[in-house]
């Protein structure tokens, strides 16, 4: 009886077993890499806004404090998007006839909200709270990056759960003195490890077990 399979079929059979494992592994790796890439996390993607508001101009050039507009960042979960009136504090006088601010003036005239596009969007099952981070020594730029250099704001961090946990496991690396929280140019000093430990004690930070417990962020 003639052979149905050629001798090389032995090799092909073994290779296909090997290939399934390797190709499958590669495919899985690919999916995981893509899921963590800016393509999915939207990291470093600037968003178009109804008015091309520049944080670089207002924060970097004019030196306006974050809290001038984001008034509730120290006291509430939500940092707060300023009402149109806050813009008008200055823009009733400054640039009050330029075309690109017409949506602002229209909003003020008609009492309709400007619909800004949300840049940092967490899943609804994450109960993020700005005030606790601010009051426990985490500065704005630790998560938001150098906002003072962004003409249009983009998300500077991946905002994935593993990224959150990196800091919740070792918050000492990012703790700042109280007067540096809103400093956009803060860099960790050389003795951050030691300083971070002291600050953690001063701020009465919870233990890593508590900080990484599910219910700290999910309820």
């Amino acid at each position, binding site marked *: 009886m003639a052979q149905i399979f050629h001798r090389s079929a032995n090799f092909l059979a073994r290779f296909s077993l090997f290939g399934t494992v390797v190709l499958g592994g590669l495919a899985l790796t690919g999916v995981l890499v893509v899921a963590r890439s800016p393509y*999915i996390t939207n990291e470093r993607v600037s968003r178009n806004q109804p008015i091309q508001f520049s944080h670089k101009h207002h924060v970097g050039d004019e030196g*306006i404090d974050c809290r001038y507009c984001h*008034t509730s960042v120290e006291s509430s979960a939500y940092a707060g998007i300023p009402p149109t*009136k806050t813009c008008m504090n*200055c823009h009733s006088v*400054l640039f009050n006839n330029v075309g690109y601010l017409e949506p602002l003036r229209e909003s003020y005239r008609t009492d309709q909200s400007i619909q800004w596009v949300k840049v940092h*969007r967490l*899943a609804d099952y994450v109960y993020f709270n700005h005030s606790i981070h601010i009051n426990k020594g985490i500065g704005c730029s630790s998560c938001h990056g150098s906002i003072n250099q962004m003409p249009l704001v983009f998300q500077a961090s991946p905002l994935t759960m593993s990224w959150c946990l990196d800091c919740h496991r070792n918050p000492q690396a990012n703790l700042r003195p109280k007067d540096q929280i809103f400093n956009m140019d803060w860099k960790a000093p050389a003795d951050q490890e030691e300083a971070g430990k002291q600050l953690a004690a001063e701020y009465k930070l919870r233990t890593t077990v508590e900080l990484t417990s599910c219910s700290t962020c999910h309820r």
Partner: protein
Amino acid sequence: MKANSSLRAILLAFLGASSLAGCNYTLRQDMANQPRQNTLSPSDLFADGRSERQLIDNTVARGSVENDALFVPKDSNAFPLPITQELLQRGQERYNIFCTPCHGLQGNGQGMVAVRGMKHPPSYHQDRLRQEPNGYIYDVVTNGFGAMYGYSAQIPPRDRWAIIAYVRALQLSRNAHVADLPADLREKLMAQGAAK
């Protein structure tokens, strides 16, 4: 006909896949987008499109009655809080956030926004403003004055008084006499002066 419909199916599948990839959050699980209103999210329920509702006229927000004690009439020089180091430091911090863009760090009206073209506010160090009562400053912070809009929405009453205390300290800084200092501070100042 058959070829046509399968082509359409392929096209639809392609469109579906590309919209999935193009949309920001569709790869996440369903509960990432729950049927609820997040802070300041838009809403179809109300005519103005806001989920955030404004206070109905003549309602009193919880906690706001306590602010009644902090109201001082325009012509009164009363100061409703005890003046402490903490209050002054709070005032300095709040002043630097909300007032320096126009009034400047020294209160001389040379803030960055004023320098860049906003109407220059008067210096706090002129005689008229040094003589105005506390209630007048409180009224200006709350309701605005001239080109300055009111800051009642941005600065709660207690912080307004902290700012007023700090503004008074700024005014004093240019008109204090060495003789006004406590003895130990005076000696320190003299020692520093002698060292230079």
